């Protein structure tokens, strides 16, 4: 049962990360910013500091937990923006066709041609660092796949008799897109969204690593990597654990996305009567 494994394992990892982020305030033994004690800097993992301490003597475990809040906020919110933009553009383009379809298609192809990280970097350069601009930058640059999937699924539904029946019954185009088409294409859009969360977490880490994301001392997995990259020989735990956190989160959401896709794929569903 490979199908089940992806879904269950991915879901477990994702839930652990989400719970950790939500409960960071209660679980974390130290304050991620204020509890800096240079006397205990670069300490290896111990019972006192489960994952060791960084160059400023801050508890890595606490910082990873609080970093999860940033990473997940960025991952979930920016992907929500992406999904909304992609779905609205894709469904309307597929439904109306004509010049609007051509325009959206052109825009999607342009977005696919530009590396999204470079585009996000450019937006960050204009807006300046910080969480809100990070959400905007990542939320505006990764909607092209959602848009494509939404458009192609819409095309397969818009000529179905039930859509014509809704037209004949007098429903407006907006209503038809919302009540007839959207519920039918939600599956594939959701799968893309789940996969997108992983890449948004990675992109946040990359941007913060490059210094344009979340600025220190606010912890994020990306800027923790930047801060500790010079300690990689003397205090590897300060960079290994944030890296591991990124790895686990991305893996979790990607497996969840794969599992969802398998579950929603009609060809995989034949066993379920």
């Amino acid at each position, binding site marked *: 049962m490979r199908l089940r494994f992806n879904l269950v394992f991915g879901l477990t990892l994702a839930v652990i990360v989400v719970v950790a982020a939500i409960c960071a305030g209660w679980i974390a033994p130290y304050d991620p910013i204020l509890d800096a004690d240079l006397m205990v800097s670069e300490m290896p993992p111990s019972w006192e500091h489960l994952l060791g301490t960084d160059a400023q003597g801050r508890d890595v475990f606490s910082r990873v937990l609080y970093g999860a809040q940033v990473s997940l906020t960025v991952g979930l919110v920016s992907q929500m923006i992406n999904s909304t933009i992609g779905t609205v553009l894709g469904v309307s383009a597929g439904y109306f066709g004509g010049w609007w379809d051509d325009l959206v298609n052109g825009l999607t192809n342009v977005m696919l041609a530009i590396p999204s990280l470079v585009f996000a970097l450019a937006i960050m350069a204009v807006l300046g660092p910080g969480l809100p601009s990070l959400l905007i930058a990542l939320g505006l640059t990764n909607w092209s796949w959602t848009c494509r999937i939404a458009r192609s699924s819409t095309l397969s539904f818009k000529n*179905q*008799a*039930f859509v*014509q*029946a*809704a*037209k*004949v*019954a*007098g*429903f*407006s185009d907006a*209503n038809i897109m919302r*009540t*007839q088409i959207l*519920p*039918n294409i939600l599956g594939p859009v959701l799968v893309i969204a789940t996969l997108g969360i992983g890449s948004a977490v990675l992109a946040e880490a990359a941007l913060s690593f490059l210094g344009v994301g979340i600025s220190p001392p606010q912890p994020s997995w990306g800027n923790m990597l930047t801060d500790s990259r010079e300690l990689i020989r003397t205090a590897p735990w300060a960079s290994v654990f944030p890296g591991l956190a990124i790895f686990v989160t991305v893996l979790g959401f990607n497996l969840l996305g794969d599992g969802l896709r398998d579950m929603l794929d009609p060809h995989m569903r034949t066993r379920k009567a």
Partner: protein
Amino acid sequence: MSAPLLEIRDLSVHFPLPRQSPLAPKRTLRAVQGVNLTLNEGECLSIVGESGCGKSTTALTVMGLQEPTQGDVLFRGRSLTGANAPGRKDRARIAQMVFQDPYASLNPRQTVGRMLSSQLSLHEIAKGSDADHRVADMLTRVGLTPDHANRYPHEFSGGQRQRIGIARALMLDPKILVLDEPVSALDVSIQAQIINLLMHLQETLGLSYIMISHDLSVVEHVSDRVAVMYFGRVVEEGDWNSIFNRPTHPYTRRLISSVPDPDAVLVGTRRLPDAAPIPDASRFSPDISRRPTPDEEPEPSVLIQIGESHTVRVAQ
């Protein structure tokens, strides 16, 4: 006499065909070509013909799902096409449609009750428990039970789905029902049930039907009048009696002879009724011994009267 309920006047629908090469002349698919039909109150008009003859396109034009290239559709003398056409919502109260495929015509993600009651709230006819009542009434009327409202389409059989399709079409109390091959996707045993239901509903609700079909054995049971279409034109039209007892156009005769009649085959006495006489010098149009290409200009022809309310197309 007052204006007929629905009048299709000189209707043509053309589609552009892709050019065969950049230098080739423009080609046009003449799906519907100068069709004139009238539907009177309480009547069932059948449009029959093979697939691709333009019967469904005619139906879609009546429903407003297809813009006519030329001509007009009038409801009680009021135009349903062009700039002054009523909006989608007004039009919904005039005519509704039952679709051919009972599987594709129901949204898999919507319960039957929601599908039916959403129409009522859109048109501000009823809300809340009043709407639920009307939905339950309608489901009973088409031979289902009120508790079917909470189910999704995949829980129903083909025949039940077609009943739901009929319920949906009747929710807004329309005057005209366009039936696009309403039973051709169903089992023969179910076909009879649905036909009986449609006839019963027509009688009790005073509906007028336009029935599209390629199956004359279905048409025979319900129609008052029949129009036979061939390559975009009406080739013969008349009341039920004249079409089935005096089929005149060679194409109509071919259609009728294709209806299986097991008794006649067994006894070996299969024969068609005689054709009505047509004037000496005239020739039927189009010539069905060769198949026209869909983009060719049709030959000039007229419908001539050959009996009381019985016309046939001859070359001019």
